[in-house]
């Protein structure tokens, strides 16, 4: 099971939704593992928009369905956790689960990144990093720190953590 938390507490920390959709497609093409999208109830519709095109038996949306406690209990069973700079990234890292964190330049990843034995943090270092800003109006640079993290690059990082795909589709 691959667990993905596509949202954080702040829009500047969020990897673009369209990138997540691309990443999910790549993961589905390469691996047989089911993908579970986690989030808060208020993020459910936005996650629906992200996963609508995928089969429900491959990609589930449990936003607003799983409580935080249920997420805590389930994270240990994940083969990979993918998240922004958010609680789920720290949860996966702390549980010792392979965790791939997509880290925006609002904060210094060395200072605030998830810590654990199997963490990969992907980030950029634009001149404006770290900006310490929040909210859509907090960035004056087109969110370049996140838009430069292309889905192919993130998939390559995920692939390194998941290993060579066993799925016959690749």
């Amino acid at each position, binding site marked *: 099971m691959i667990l993905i938390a596509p949202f954080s507490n702040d829009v500047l920390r969020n990897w673009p939704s369209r990138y997540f959709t691309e990443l999910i497609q790549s993961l589905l093409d390469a691996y047989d593992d089911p993908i579970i999208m986690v989030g808060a109830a208020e993020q459910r*519709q936005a996650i629906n928009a992200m996963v609508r095109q995928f089969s429900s038996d*491959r990609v589930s949306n449990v936003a607003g369905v799983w409580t935080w406690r249920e997420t805590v209990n389930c994270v240990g069973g994940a083969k990979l956790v993918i998240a922004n700079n958010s609680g789920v990234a720290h949860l996966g890292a702390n549980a010792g689960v392979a965790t791939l964190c997509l880290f925006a330049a609002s904060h210094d990843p060395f200072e605030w990144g998830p810590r654990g034995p199997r963490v990969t943090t992907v980030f950029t270092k634009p001149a404006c990093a770290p900006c310490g800003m929040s909210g859509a109006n907090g960035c004056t640079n087109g969110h370049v720190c996140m838009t430069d993290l292309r889905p192919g690059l993130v998939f390559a990082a995920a692939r390194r953590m998941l290993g060579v795909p066993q799925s016959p589709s690749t």
Partner: protein
Amino acid sequence: MHSWGENVGEEARKNYSRWLDGGFYARYLSGENVLDIGYSGYLDGVKPITPSAIGVGLDYPGYDGKTLPFGDDSQDAVFASHCLEHIDDYRSAIREWFRVVRVGGHLVVSVPHQYLYERRLHLPSQFNADHRRFYTAASLLSEVEEAVDPIHFRVRHLEDNDRGFDYSIPPDRHAVGSYEILLVIEKIARPGYADLVSAEPEITTASDGVFMMIPKPGNDRPVVAVSSTAPPQSVIVFKMDHLGDFIAAEPAMSDLRTAFPEAHLTLVCGSWNVGAAKELGVFDEVIEFSLFARYSPLNGTIDLETSVEELHRLVRDREFDLALDLRVDPDTRSVLKHVNARVRAGFGTKQSFPWLDIALPMISPTARGSARKDYFGARQFQSRVGVNHGHSLEIPPGVYESDNTIVWGPYCGIPEGTYIVTLHLEGAEGTIPPFDYDIVCRGGNDRLASGPGNEIAGVGVVLTLNSPIQDLEVRIWGRGVSSTRATLRGCTIVKFGEIGGPHQTELMAMLVALTRHRVCFLQTEERIA
């Protein structure tokens, strides 16, 4: 027409007459082009929901159970009665059903109700082993919202249908009556604002944001930082200072065993501390090495380079995962350069000690908050009326008006803190001339203090700065009265020492904690295209 209902699907049959008479058919199933998905259920001889409807089963030509052999927006209605609960991929099924419905047409879905039909909390169903999920009205609608963007439909009908349901039948027996949820959604034309609703939050580029778009040199590619578990197996600790320092370090040294439970711990300390080190019971090995003299006044000078070479001979054939210098003062940090260690940790900054992998910036009150005294001579003052001899500035006798600046300077930068500022100014025969003073910064725009000259030229003025300033300026003003000749010899700025802050025991404990948290997760960075 009523007779048609006798042969429709088993569940729809229960509602047929009511739907016909009540207008449900007219509203939702009246068009020519209607599909009845999975219409036959488990029975033979079943007819689709309306006489003109096409019953689509797995044997329907061109239907593979997933993709309907009908065009987009081609159907007035799609009817799926007690079908969805048998399908694993509900999202694709609903999406496909909705695809073929025309704008203004309807998707009519019914499923068995968890609390009417199943009457249990968890799968499997006790009445139909093929049921994949249990439903409530909320969970059915939730599946529909997952499958179809709610911008494209409106819910026209949603009900728990329990007509004729017998509530006296216990849950372990099959239900009687209607026990379903019925949902009707209408496909609507895509509103003009739809793209705005689904757009991601706009994070813009400022028109003047050019600077920020220039990456720092070498920082133009994304970075992957990978961490792995690397608890050190061998740790060498240096605590080479004196008896009291060693005692102060004991709590932090005890923390080492908790921090690195699996590691072989080696201590390097002066000969005078070897006994205490062994008694502490923390270290697996104690190496005696007297870098300093036990009693400094007897042998205050050490040749660090020679001593370090001697230490190097002691440990040059050893390899350690971690080398940690617990001395607070910086003079032993260079020792770490001579140890074969994967990670080197100590107090200070990487700027000062580039060989440190883990550096805890010194926050010693003694080092950072120490008292200081700065003297600024007459040469650093200017005057419109006086003569500056370098060692002193002579101000001639006269009447100086109150808006007249007589002397100003020294434009020095000082950090935050509390100060006494004293001006060395005297008139004839040791008197203080009748001048006023003020202390300003930021080009004279911010006034920090002001008053009669005898204050600043006497015991001095106490000045508290909450932030550092770059251009401290003391000015002498006239007071409109006659003055004898006056002499300025400069000013003294004394900073009070700041007492308080971390104890050295706490500092060492912080360094052990920092090292423990940092070193256990080995982090490597690499740039990726």
